[in-house]
């Protein structure tokens, strides 16, 4: 009990002394109405497609080709001091799962371990509909898991969710799991995506 009180006080202190402490926004910056999405994928084709999907959905987009570069962009690579570092404001991170070097899962973990960025919703994209993989990602705090190729409707749905501030923690971690395998069609994830979207606010 005491520990909890202390840590929430510490959080308040942190906000006071770090005015530039980057806030993971639940809503995009007022006035611009634009979500800033960081997309990570080692495939050039997929990067170009996701970039277009996001731009058409009126999002500001930054695309990088690896988890390492994503961490660099966020300032989490240990190269820069986080004190006073006016970090970038990202509202959503979308990452491919299978990438050489650092996988999307590993990137997800790093982000969730970060006190600065753990609030940012992270969505995993994968061409493989592997339940254990989906489970691990959701367990680790992923906001959603999208089956590739990602469609415009996926992005629109995601954007709606984020704009409604559903990226915040609700303390329901693990309680809203996606349905069992018989709800998934291997051809396209139409049952999957709505299933996961209806499991919103699990974080």
């Amino acid at each position, binding site marked *: 009990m005491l520990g909890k009180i202390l840590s929430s006080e510490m959080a308040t202190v942190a906000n006071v002394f770090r005015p530039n402490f980057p806030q993971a926004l639940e809503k995009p910056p007022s006035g611009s109405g634009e979500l800033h999405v960081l997309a990570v994928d*080692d*495939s*050039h*084709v*997929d990067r*170009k*497609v996701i970039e*277009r*999907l996001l731009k*058409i959905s009126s999002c500001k987009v930054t695309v990088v080709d690896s988890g390492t570069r994503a961490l660099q962009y966020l300032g989490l690579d240990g190269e820069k001091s986080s004190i006073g570092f006016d970090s970038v404001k990202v509202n959503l991170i979308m990452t491919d799962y*299978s990438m050489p070097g650092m996988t999307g899962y590993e990137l997800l973990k790093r982000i969730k371990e970060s006190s600065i960025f753990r609030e940012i919703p992270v969505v995993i994209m994968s*061409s493989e509909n592997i339940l254990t993989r989906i489970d691990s990602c959701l367990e680790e705090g992923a906001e959603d898991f999208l089956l*590739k*190729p990602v*469609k*415009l409707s996926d992005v629109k749905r995601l954007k709606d969710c984020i704009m409604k501030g559903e990226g915040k923690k609700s303390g329901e971690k693990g309680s809203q799991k996606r349905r069992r395998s018989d709800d998934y069609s291997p051809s*396209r994830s139409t049952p999957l995506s709505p299933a996961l979207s209806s499991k919103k606010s699990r974080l």
Partner: protein
Amino acid sequence: MDKSLLQRQASSMRRALFDQGYLDEQFIELEDLQDDSNPNFVEEIVTLFYKESARTVYNIEQALMSRPLDFTKLEEYMHKFKGSSSSIGAKKVKNECTKFSEYCDAENTDGCVRTFQQIKQEYSTLKNKLETYFQVAREAAQT
């Protein structure tokens, strides 16, 4: 040439690509991302696909020459290749990739070698068909 004839040609070429199973609905998803600000988006993506995947095709070819085959490596390459084929809606190519992956899982050397020949064939056929289609579509779009 008569514009409406070109448009009809482009349209029927496009329809044939779908009817004959070369393309799937993902191609339509890409078409939906095309507009006046990005009028050649689909062609750009396809061009990028062929450029980027050339490396992977080469890597697979090389890997298929060693004996015994490194199925793990092959599966890794194929996963990447299949992913981008799927991203452009290359249906036949993607289906052959699935077969290849199955042969990899079964550690079937002959199956892998044969299937890859099929993949290359479909890959190349699609490239030619799309190049022709894009050219006609572009001409049809010009006033």
